[in-house]
């Protein structure tokens, strides 16, 4: 590869990553707005928030945190693997990341279904009759974890596309911006959860 080609690839990688970071900042402020709404209502209805949060299962929340943290490590390791031209290992690590994301979603499914059994879902009669603060807590809980779960699913799709690209050879040791950006997106999913977990599950 000529020096000029290497140089233009470096620029493409730098600008591509910069664009991804700017996108991540908009995502950060999207969730930031929700965090702020949460903080204000929690200050206003602290005892209701405490009662409602007691309904959430800390064990499931902790397990999901562990899944996301481990998946963040495996996706970071996959970049190391591609840099070392260990393609099969990179694919394996991304596949593990997707499986962990799937386990996170499965846990979420059980958690939400359990609430639905008790008729706790937005718009239900049970929820409408709860005190104002508890209604707000569950509204925010579904909105924040729902929006986060949507991001988990998008992340799973991006990582699956990356696997195909590695197999096809369009993502390789010399050209792995797609993997880096998918990884950055995946880490953002993890970052949001790191804040959601104590705010929703660890209220005392």
């Amino acid at each position, binding site marked *: 590869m000529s020096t000029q080609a290497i140089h233009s690839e470096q620029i493409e990688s730098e600008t591509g990553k910069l664009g991804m970071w700017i996108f991540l900042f908009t995502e950060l402020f999207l969730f930031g707005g929700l965090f702020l709404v949460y903080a204000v209502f929690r200050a206003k209805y602290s005892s209701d928030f405490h009662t409602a949060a007691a309904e959430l299962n800390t064990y499931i929340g902790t397990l999901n945190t562990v899944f996301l*943290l481990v998946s963040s*490590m495996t996706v970071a390791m996959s970049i*190391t693997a591609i*840099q070392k031209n260990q393609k099969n290992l990179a694919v394996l690590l991304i596949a593990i990341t997707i499986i962990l994301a799937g386990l996170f979603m499965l846990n979420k499914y059980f958690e939400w279904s359990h609430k639905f059994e008790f008729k706790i879902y937005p718009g239900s009669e049970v929820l409408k009759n709860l005190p104002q603060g508890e209604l707000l807590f569950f509204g925010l809980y579904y909105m924040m974890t729902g929006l986060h779960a949507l991001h988990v699913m998008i992340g799973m799709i991006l990582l699956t596309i990356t696997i195909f690209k590695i197999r096809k050879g369009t993502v390789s040791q010399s050209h792995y911006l797609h993997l880096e950006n998918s990884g950055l997106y995946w*880490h953002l999913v993890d*970052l949001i959860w790191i804040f959601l977990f*104590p*705010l929703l599950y660890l209220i005392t």
Partner: protein
Amino acid sequence: MKNEETHISSYTSHAYVLIALLILTFISVAATGWHFGAFTVTVALLIASIKVATVIINFMHVKHESLFIKAMVSGVFALFAVVIIITFIDYYLR
């Protein structure tokens, strides 16, 4: 090779970062049992912030990025914190 300056993080360094993150997670779960009164939320958010910084610096590779990306990332996160804190204080002291 992509370029000679590209830093390749080792697998073991990623594993150490994960161990640190897991320890912090269990501390924050255990900390809900200790009663700090009004500071319980502060402690939980402080631990969360340390975890977030650890992920950004190590897993998101900011440690080895250009000065421009380092400055931009830290600047935007600082702005984010300021926006949240000031808006909340504005509400709280009304």
